[in-house]
């Protein structure tokens, strides 16, 4: 297990190098990076001085090689807007985003697990079809629009919940619900299909045959195995949650990383955007790593020593 963990950690290195290349390209597609660092009225001499100071006058591959060390160390330079190092600015807002993403995950599981279970147990019944159609509709709705509709209903019409900013738990309800509804369909569909597959297995038939209560068969015997594929897509879902967070944070004025990245893109604050994308990707990579490692806990048949 320790060897496997180390191996997976080593496998992160090429991904991180790939990430640094993507970030390097991203920063240069907007034209001359020096243009964003100097005042618009700067003289050609000043521009040349800044260019030399940042090393932008050297060939591209040299620029990349000299930047890779800093990128991997998480040093992206100073934010033009805040006049302070970019990485701390991003990390400051990380807890808010994680709080939102994890609350959304809880909402999604609260919806998806019962929905997926019911759909699988009553396969092809009207109930199953209703659940399947509702979840397809959930996949089709842009989540920022769902957020706006929730604001319209609970904020403007009913006035039950605050619609923007932070404060107590009530501020979290609408954004977390919006984001959670976004991933619930994928989770419930997956649980439904893996549950259907597991319910057909012989050990489930045996459990029923020996007279176990149906609730015990479903929850204790079947669901445990049905949840394994459920965990595999957690990494993908994390990417989706963080992506969705950018827009949901903007809609609800939630002070997280996503909103910071969006605002930084608007004013071309390259350092902050780089740092933000880097952290987002790193979180997804770590989530994927945890997923791989958690298989061992869920499925003892998987052997890591091979």
């Amino acid at each position, binding site marked *: 297990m320790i060897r496997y963990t180390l191996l997976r950690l080593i496998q992160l290195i*090429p*991904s991180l190098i*790939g*990430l640094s290349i*993507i970030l390097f390209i*991203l*920063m240069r*597609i*907007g034209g001359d990076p020096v243009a964003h660092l100097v005042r618009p009225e700067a003289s050609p001499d000043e521009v040349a001085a800044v260019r030399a100071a940042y090393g932008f006058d050297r060939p591209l591959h040299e620029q990349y090689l000299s930047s890779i060390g800093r990128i991997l160390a998480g040093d992206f330079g100073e934010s033009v807007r805040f006049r302070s190092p970019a990485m701390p600015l991003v990390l400051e807002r990380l807890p808010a985003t994680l709080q939102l993403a994890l609350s959304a995950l809880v909402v999604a599981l609260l919806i998806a697990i019962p929905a997926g279970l019911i759909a*699988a147990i009553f*396969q092809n019944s009207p109930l199953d079809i209703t659940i399947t*159609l509702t979840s*397809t*509709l959930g*996949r*089709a*709705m*842009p989540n*920022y*629009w*769902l957020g*706006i*509709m929730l*604001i*319209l209903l609970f904020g*403007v019409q009913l006035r039950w919940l605050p619609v923007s900013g932070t404060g107590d738990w009530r501020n979290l309800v609408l954004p977390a619900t919006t984001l959670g509804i976004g991933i619930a369909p994928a989770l419930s*569909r997956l649980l*439904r*299909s893996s549950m*259907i597959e597991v319910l057909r297995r012989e050990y489930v038939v045996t459990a029923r045959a020996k007279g176990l209560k149906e609730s015990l068969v479903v929850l204790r015997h079947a669901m445990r195995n049905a949840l394994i594929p459920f965990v595999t897509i957690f990494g*993908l879902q994390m*990417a*989706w949650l*963080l*992506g*969705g967070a*950018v*827009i949901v944070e*903007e*809609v609800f004025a939630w002070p997280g990383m*996503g909103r910071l*990245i*969006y605002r930084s*893109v*608007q004013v*071309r604050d*390259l350092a902050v*955007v780089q740092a*933000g*994308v880097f952290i*987002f*990707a790193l979180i*997804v*990579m770590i989530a*994927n790593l945890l997923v791989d490692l958690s298989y061992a806990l869920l499925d003892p048949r998987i052997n890591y020593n091979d």
Partner: protein
Amino acid sequence: MKTVPAASLPEIQRPRSARPAWLRSLMRNSVGGVGLVIVAIVLITALAGPLFAPHDPAKLNVKTRYIPPAWSAEGDSRYLLGTDQLGRDVLSRLIYGARVSVIVGLLGVSISVLVGVTIGLTSGYIGGRVDNLLSRLVDTFMAIPFIILALAAVGFLGPGLFNLIIVLGLTGWVTFARVVRGEVLAVKSMEYITAARTIGQSSWRIMLFHVLPNVTASIIVLATLQIATVIIAESSLSFLGMGVQPPTITWGVMLSEGRNHLATSWWLATFPGVAISLTALGIILMGDWLRDALDPRLRQG
């Protein structure tokens, strides 16, 4: 297993009707039919919208500002879905907006298919170091949330229809590469490929004429579903002001303008979202049906 008398076999194997397989599967899956109808309506609207839009979508009119939908008390039957803050007809704008969604969806996904399939084929067929390198690239792209990469890229390139199509195309190819690579690996070791190689066909010829046809079904299904993703992404980026810019009419821009009038004019932010959701719903239903019809292996549950 019971044995079947040989004489009765041809009888059983003859197809029961002359209808093509896709039509029969469509009749079994009525939901897929609903999807097909929605997609057809959206396509017709995008192509021929100007012919039946009731009003000029860009015409400003101070006298007709903020008219609610026709069925509400203050509604006006000439403006079925009401008018916006500048007095423009919402329905006409929705009809014109379909065009951008369709263009971005189709062209963006075409780019993704081209890039993704090329990378997937190369990676799976050549294997070895090339495969290793390309797989790492795919892994890396998978780790960066699609919409954030697109947001940053389009933000730095500058907003606009053309840039948006390019960016959404170049950020959405990963799924295609992954699936195609997997399918290629599965097909590669089959005997007919070995046979083709034995008679001296070139790698490119084998990839294009022997491997690719085997993965087309998956590509069509994925591409259909990806169109929905791209249409939603386009509307999201336009909503954030990073996509298509006014005066071009898009559902995302309409939504973002309508958001400023939530407290007074609910319909402005509501209907564009309904249009996006219905379009995406139609495409997803169609994609799920295609998956069942074209490739039973991909069937879920």
